[in-house]
Structures are given as C-alpha cells and as structure tokens.
C-alpha cells in the first residue's frame, strides 16, 4: 500500500467523505466535506468511486510528500499549490483537473487566496478505516478519519489501490507527455461554481418556522442588510455579525432535529448557522435554512467576508439544485468521453 507523508501540517486538515447522514437520530453529527461539490469533483477527476475519502484543507494547507506516479486532483479553494521535485524545480499545480505527478517530491499548499477549503483527492482515496458507515473525521468524538483528529506533521496517510478508471486517466494524461516535466495535466479544467474572493456573497435561504416571529424591522434587516462571517466560525457552525435580530416570542423551545444550513437565533440576536460538524438537534428559533444548492458556496466563505441573504421557496430551491446536478452530470459525461479519447 502506498502512503502520503504530511511533511508540514496545515492549520486544520482532516480526512472527509460524504459524511454520516443517517445517524442523526442517534445524536451523531453528519461530518463529511463542507463543500461536497468540490469534494465530489476532485474524486471524479482521479477516477475514484463517489464515496472515496479525500483531504479537506482549511485556510492554510499542508506540505505533502508524494511518490512518483501519483494521480491527484485539487478542487475548491485556491491555496497556490506548488510541486517541488527531487531536483528542487518547482511547478504550479493546476486545479480542477487531473494531475499526474511523475516524480517523487513535495506538494506544497499555501494560504487560500480564493475560497477557504481545498479538497485534495488521490487515486485510490485515503484508506482509513470505515467507522459508522464513513471515513469522515468526527472531531468532537475523536473517531473516524485519520485517528479521529486534525492531521499533524509526520502523519503517514494510507492510500488505497487505484481503481481501473484512475489507470485509464493516467494513460490518457501521458498522451500530453513532455518527458522533461514532472507533472502531466490537461489544459482544460472543470468548475461548477466560483469560490468567493472578495465582496459580498449572496446566499439563498428558505425562511424557517420562526422567521415570522421576528420583529418587522428584523424581518426586513434579514434580507436588506449585510452580515459578516465572524472569525470564530468553523466546521461546527458560522456566527454572523450584523444587525441584531429580535424575536417577538420569548417562549423557550424544546430541542428538535435540525439540518446542515439551519440558521438559528440565540438570545444575543446574532444568527448562527449549523454546518457539517454541528449538532443534529437544536433548541433555538430557526429563522432560515440555506438552500442546498448554495451550501458549497457557504463552505467556501472566508471569515470576515460579508454576505446577504435572499429568500427562495423550497420548490425553486429544488429546481436550482437539479440544475446544479445536471451540470455535474454533463461534466461527468464529457470527462468520460475525454478518458476514452473520443474528444481531445
């Protein structure tokens, strides 16, 4: 079995897959990639099965030691990845496409300059044990992923054996062969959405059960004003600073099952949004839920960035989600044709 060594750990890199959607009734958090779309694309581009585990790097990435003949794909945030080969020659590593690393060397990620979370898939996937139906890291419980924790310098990540499709992709890439180069990659790239750089991000939300219990001024502020993502935001949830929202009802609520993207309003008036590591139940008023189509975008928002919310109905949110899936399907089909050599 091949391995990848973490030569220098980033700030908060974890092993993630699609998460544990079906254990919320037992209080188990979902975990999994925050930006499931970039995670899915990265796996697709190296020929992995949809559920293979990848690395999620947040804010500042790692330096990884990789062996020759490693097929990778990087999607999501741009952390200015560089490959430094044995002879100390360095190359920019292109994103959103398959990249075959042909000599051993170091893959170095810097600070995210666009987006916040980068996904690194390796052909064969990160082969950590499956725990509770998933390879995702459950940080709070210290289980799953790589030893239940954030990666540290010196960790040796086991990599599974590459699927047949990965080998086809490698063969296809070698047709671009320029034997002097340490990397082989196509000139095309795929992109389902653009991670936010600066300026205001718009997130579409479905009003929640308690939205209409907000004071009129707060209902208006929710959609007219901007909110800033606080620095204390993480995989459990985001805090927003902006207009203080007030509820007309002071009734204490019982805990109920909530979902990823649920925006709750604690008594201090600053909304909080549940993300992938957030508890599956909550007892604060639910003022809105991020439309699923925008969750990948929400995952890429940088702390300090501003955003506004715009309302959307469930039916319209489903339609947008279907359009997004259609785009993914088109990319998948086109990629298959490229692997076959049907298209250049």
């Amino acid at each position, binding site marked *: 079995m091949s391995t990848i060594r973490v030569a220098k750990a980033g700030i908060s890199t974890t092993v993630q897959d699609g998460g544990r959607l079906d254990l919320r009734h037992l209080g188990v958090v979902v975990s999994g990639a925050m930006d499931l779309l970039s995670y899915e694309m990265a796996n697709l581009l190296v020929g992995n099965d949809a559920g293979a585990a990848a690395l999620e790097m947040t804010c500042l990435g790692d330096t990884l030691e990789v062996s020759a003949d490693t097929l990778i794909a990087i999607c999501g945030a741009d952390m200015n990845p560089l490959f430094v080969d044995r002879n100390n020659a360095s190359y920019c590593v292109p994103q959103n496409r398959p990249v075959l690393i042909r000599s051993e060397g170091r893959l170095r990620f810097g600070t995210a300059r666009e987006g916040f979370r980068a996904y690194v898939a390796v052909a064969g996937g990160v082969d950590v044990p499956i725990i509770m139906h998933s390879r995702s890291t459950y940080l709070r419980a210290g289980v799953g992923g790589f030893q239940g924790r954030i990666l540290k310098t010196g960790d040796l990540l086991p990599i599974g054996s590459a699927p047949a499709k990965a080998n086809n992709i490698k063969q296809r890439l070698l047709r671009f062969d320029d034997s002097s180069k340490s990397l082989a990659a196509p000139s095309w790239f795929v992109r389902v959405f653009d991670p936010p750089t600066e300026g205001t991000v718009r997130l579409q939300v479905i009003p929640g059960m308690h939205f209409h219990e907000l004071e009129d001024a707060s209902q208006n502020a929710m959609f007219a004003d901007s909110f800033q993502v606080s620095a204390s935001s993480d995989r459990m949830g985001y805090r927003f600073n902006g207009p203080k929202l007030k509820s007309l009802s002071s009734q204490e609520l019982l*805990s109920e*099952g909530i979902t990823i*993207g649920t925006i709750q309003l604690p008594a201090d008036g600053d909304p909080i949004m549940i993300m992938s590591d957030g508890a599956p139940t909550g007892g604060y008023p639910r003022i809105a839920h991020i439309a699923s189509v925008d969750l990948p975008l929400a995952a890429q928002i940088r702390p300090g960035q501003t955003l506004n919310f715009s309302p959307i109905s469930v039916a319209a949110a489903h339609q947008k989600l279907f359009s997004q899936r259609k785009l993914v399907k088109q990319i998948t089909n086109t990629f298959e044709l490229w692997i076959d050599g049907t298209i250049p």
Partner: protein
Amino acid sequence: MNLPAIEPMGDTGLLVAWEGLSDQVALQHVQSLALAVRRSTIPGIVDVVPAFASLTIHYNPWQIGLSEFEGSIRELISRMDLQVNLPSRSIELPVCYDSEFALDLDDVSKLLGLSTREIIRLHSEAEYVVQMIGFAPGFPYLAGLPKELCVARRGVPRVEVPAGSVAIGGKQTGIYSLATPGGWQIIGRTPQRLFLPELDPPCLLQAGDRVRFVPITRQEFNDWHART
C-alpha cells in the same frame, strides 16, 4: 386525534410537530410516526429524528418532491395507530453515586432539602423513557424523573463534564455520553459506555427505550472498568 403542524426544514427536511400534549402522549405520537415512516415505502427517506414533541424527517429531493413527500407523511399520520404497542427495550444501567463522581449531589441535597441517600433512592427506583437522543452521540434525554428531584440547572455550566456522568436538570435526567460542556447537576457516573462507534448501531440507547438505574459501589465500578 391531535393533528400536528408540518413545516419544511429547509429543502431536504420536513418537521412534524405536536403542541399541547403531555410528555407521555407526545412520546407516543412521535414514536408511532417514526415507526410508521421507517416501515413505509416512501422513497427518498434519509433519516428520521425523534425529539420531545416533534419528528424531523430528512429526505432526498432527487427521489421525491416536497408536495408528494408531505402528502405521503400526512397520509401516514391520518392512518397512524396510537394503540399499537411500540417496540421498547428495557435496559438497566449501573450507576455509582459515590461522592467522587457525584460532583453536585451535595448541592442538590441542599437545594431540594433531601438527604443524598433519599435522592439516590428516588433516582434509582424510577423507570425512565428515552424521549430523544441528542446534544451528543448517544446522549439520552430521559423522562420520568420523580417530581421531588426536579432541580434547577447549575448557574454556571461546566466547561467539561466527564463522560458517563449521570445528571439531572429541570424535569429530566440524562447521561453525558462524551466529555462535553454541560449545565446539568451531576449525581453519579455509569461505567457503561453509551457511544460505541465501533458497533452498529453505534449507540446503546434509542428513543423509546425504558431505562432503570442500578446503584453500584465504587468497587463494582472499578471491576466493570477492569472487565471492559
């Protein structure tokens, strides 16, 4: 028949919530519907999360649209049979009420004007029902606390409550399945792990289970740990 409110929980969930029911009746409604949904052939169901007086049903919008999904759930509710005997397991949990573990037992004793021995007797003689699992993996919210033991939560929550701590707060009792922050009054500790990630299902308890606490000595607590 008390008809619940049905509301979308974003674009991948549906919340069914009852109002004005006693704990016991709410539990019966929630459990009956949870069972009916799990046994149904409605496509696209991802998870069914019972809470005190509500059920959140997570669904996959690729497989079913909202109106069809909501219609199917309404139909299940209209056909729901509350008379049916719900499957319920009976589970005994050992608890050591030794002062080393029962961090708040003396405070609770003062607050309630009951001796610690009386508190232990009342707490371990009652039968409880798991209303929901939440807050942390495998953390049971248990109904059935004798009213003599209803007590305010701690003024200042603890930053970290040791795993296994058995605690009371308000009219409920529960067990901290992981070391987490917490504000309930701790009156003992169980050596039995509640969160078992290596097993399937990964939690000892589930909503609807009946639970009794069996007092054990400090020595028995140690022996249990030595065995497992």
